[in-house]
């Protein structure tokens, strides 16, 4: 089953409001921005209920996110005590915009390139508490945290990692998929669970009803002479 694309969504909304492509006010961009507004609320609600990560189809995989070593001064500036790591690596490029969940970016998993070792997403403060605990030497779990558009990895010597997340922008550069490079945005996947689409569409329709003053269908008037 193919994924729902952004084009599918805008087309369906246009159908609902009986708009045509030539309407200068009702652009695809506007419909998509309305969709994002309502989708973010629904996604946060689902995230709080811990029901999102079960849907693999809404997550995109960034198969090769390159890492680089950063100096300890820079790492300390990120709020991490220097004694708790040997090296700190960071993603070379700012990572793409991820959908925000209730606890931060919606990242399903961060793993080594072969997927054999999982990295746990945490926060700099939480990592501080963990690394300062007496039993830290027994802790073999690898950690990462998200800060200022970068992911930071203490005590990892890998050249790159693999990330599975809900993205809101084009990630073809990270996937090395040059076929998709010139693909229009409308052809990209929507990355929203299908079962909340109707709920989002109803909310968008409610917005548009006021903005566009879409006339409602009249009830059939059997007495009208013009019928």
């Amino acid at each position, binding site marked *: 089953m193919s994924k729902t694309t952004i084009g599918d969504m805008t087309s369906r909304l246009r159908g609902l409001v009986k708009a045509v492509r030539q309407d200068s006010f009702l652009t695809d961009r506007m419909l998509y921005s309305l969709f994002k507004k309502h989708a973010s609320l629904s996604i946060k609600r689902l995230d709080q209920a*811990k029901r999102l*990560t*079960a849907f693999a189809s809404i997550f995109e995989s960034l198969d090769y996110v390159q890492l680089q070593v950063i100096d300890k001064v820079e790492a300390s500036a990120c709020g991490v005590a220097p004694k708790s790591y040997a090296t700190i690596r960071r993603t070379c490029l700012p990572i793409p915009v991820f959908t925000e969940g209730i606890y931060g970016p919606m990242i*399903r998993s961060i793993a080594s390139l072969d997927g054999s070792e999982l990295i*746990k*997403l945490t926060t700099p403060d939480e990592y501080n508490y*963990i690394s300062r*605990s007496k*039993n*830290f*030497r*027994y*802790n*073999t*779990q690898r950690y990462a945290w998200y800060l200022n558009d970068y992911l930071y990895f203490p005590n990892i010597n890998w050249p790159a990692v693999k990330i599975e997340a809900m993205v809101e922008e084009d990630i073809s550069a990270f996937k090395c998929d040059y076929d998709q490079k010139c693909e229009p945005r409308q052809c990209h996947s929507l990355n929203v669970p299908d079962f909340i689409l109707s709920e989002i569409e109803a909310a968008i329709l409610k917005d548009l009803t006021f903005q566009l003053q879409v006339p409602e269908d009249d009830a059939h008037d059997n007495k009208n002479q013009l019928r």
Partner: protein
Amino acid sequence: MASPTLKELKFRRFDELMDEVNLDLSSFAREGMIEPGQLIKVAQRVNYELGLKIHGTKETILEVEHGRSKLPADFYILNHALLCAQYTVVESGLFNGIQSENRVTPIFNPNTVPQLTSCPCWTIVNPQSNTIGFKYIKCDGTETNSSILAGATMKLCATSISNPGSYLEVSTDSFCYNIPATGEISCTIPENCGCNTPDVDTCEAIDADPWHQNRVFTTCDNTMQVNVIEYHSNEVRRYNQFERIQMVPHKEATAFCVNTQFRDACHQGHIQNGYIYVPTMRENGGNGNAKVYICYLGAMEDEDGNLLVLDHPKINEYYEFALKARIFENLYLNGEPDIERRLQMMQTQLKTARAEALSIATMPDFYELKKTIEMNRRAQYHKYMHPFSSLYANTPGWPWSYNNEYI
């Protein structure tokens, strides 16, 4: 001999335990709600509750410099320590170079220790004016004739002595010793107990049970009857002379450590901050450099420093429920909704699993039970039967025993 169950203990890494928990609570694990850093202390607490029995016994030789040496990273509690005084090279290698210590094997030589038997030692006095013959049953069950001169006193080892006319004065208040070199038994502890016996290759390995190991240190001719074999890359050394070190009681060298009882030892040491100190080695012009053999209970870690937990079908449940209960506790305290019932269920399960696990972990082994019964019987014998020895001494079959075990 160590109890078999101690030798059959299996361990697994904490990561493997976490994998089991993550598998059971897969939805929470997928959401990243299980933090291993919070659960290490729980596994350590369970290890502690299961007791010292689950800790492995390890040995090593420490290089003491200037009266101190760093203890191994996995050191937990000291069983005993010996200052190695002299060694002989058992096997010399074909090449020289950097030596690396690979293995240390202490060997207990049973041939050199006189063992107290349960065979009574009798004192026979002949107050008569003529030589009197009598029969007695040896401790191996054979009946033997003997005689005693007029006015003489003799001692012999026997299960019973027949004294039909009550001409002889017969009494017993001690037990005989076994002479390991000859296999005979004697009323007196032998002065030379066969310590020169060269055949040590047939000796059994030292008992792995820490309690039994402490008992290995029977003194004979002021030498410790323990051989420590140290394997180097180019030679094998056998340490056979040791000096005792009295250890100051400490949480890592408790009263159960045999060294705390060596009050007359010329060396005194203590453990502090991961180091063993023997300051007396620097006295009287000594440079404080020596080798110290230590036998200790290792921490629950493998060679790579990973935390270990016990791997037992029943006790695994205890570990898992303890971890799961802590996971739900933390989630509940952090405000996660709908956790109370799961937490209650886990706590109930944990209680049951804990009781079962502790019943297994604290169950005495067969050999412990056997030893306890033997000790108890001996104590009761000395308390109730021994005072009446003089009354029953002439009774056939006295003392009543079966296979040298008092009944």
